């Protein structure tokens, strides 16, 4: 692997506007396909949960796991914000280049040639 510049360029979106437009349409289509059924399912289940908690005497028990998950998720969300504020995600992408560079140097030392 001699030309590292080439490899990085390939991730650069050197795309024509047309291709970008296609990608945009695909994204929208997928988003709609996924979001509509999942929102529908979520709202239905949410209504069910509300009925459950109001109806049965021990229906309140059902919200226990939900509350647990909300609390735990909130904790992690704040930890994430804190980590981000402390600049922990500034050079997040560095290791992926470093790894490829290592590999090519090792291959050179091995005289490994790809046809």
């Amino acid at each position, binding site marked *: 692997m001699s030309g590292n510049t080439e490899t990085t360029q390939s991730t650069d979106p050197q795309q024509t506007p047309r291709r970008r437009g296609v990608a945009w349409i695909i994204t929208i289509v997928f988003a709609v396909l996924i979001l509509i059924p999942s929102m529908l399912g979520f709202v239905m289940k949410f209504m069910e949960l509300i009925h459950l908690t109001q109806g049965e005497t021990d229906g309140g028990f059902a919200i226990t796991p939900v509350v647990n998950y909300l609390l735990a998720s909130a904790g992690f969300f704040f*930890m*994430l914000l804190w*980590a981000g504020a402390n600049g*922990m*995600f500034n050079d997040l992408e560095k290791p992926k280049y470093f790894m490829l560079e290592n590999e090519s140097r090792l291959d050179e030392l091995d005289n490994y040639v790809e046809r």
Partner: protein
Amino acid sequence: MFESKAGILYIAGIGFFVLAFVSNALVPALMYNDLPEQTVEELINSNLRYQFEDLARRYPDSFKEAYGESPGGEAEHDAWWNEKCAEALRYGRKLYVGEGCWHCHSQFVRPVSNEEQRWGPVSRSAEYQNELQRPVMFGTRRVGPDLSREGGRRSNDWHTVHFFRPLDLSEGSPMPEYPWFFDGSPDKPNARGLAIITYVQWLGSWQESYPYYEDYVPSRERPEEEEDAEADNEDAAAEDDA
């Protein structure tokens, strides 16, 4: 923290694992803490004793070879039977595990999918709180039927022939044969054969509905119920091995 090695080791590696262990394993363990764990000796009931003694009557030579003979004296006699029955149960469970029976037969009745009608009462936690469910034998697949209500449904003779060659009794059964539970023929079960049959006859023997037959309603306990169950009552015996 999120990017450091210590973060990965402590938060992801240990922290999350422990969180899951506490919520998924420790919570049920604590919830059932007040249910005492029964030993095998405590599990022996009269239904099981009947089946065990029936084995001794049907296969006296095999039984004597495996367990010897009961000493005289009424108290000793009873203690001896219980001791041997416990021994058979422990060994039977070891065989049940070692032969992989639990990969084709489950031991729990779910509250859904009409299982209550097919197998009998839905499983409860207390049923599993004993030495023979360590680790628990819930099972993962039902190639053959569920066995948690199997005790007493079929005779010991049926079981010996079935273990020897399942196809003779259950047409089309994919169950393997177990000739090593016998000394050559189905009327000569060896220690292993006697033990596994004792174990199978134990399953469900603690139930009030023992032995559970599909569609069978005991007549004494429903004095003013409708008559249509009467018909079911009569052909229960014919249907029991369906």
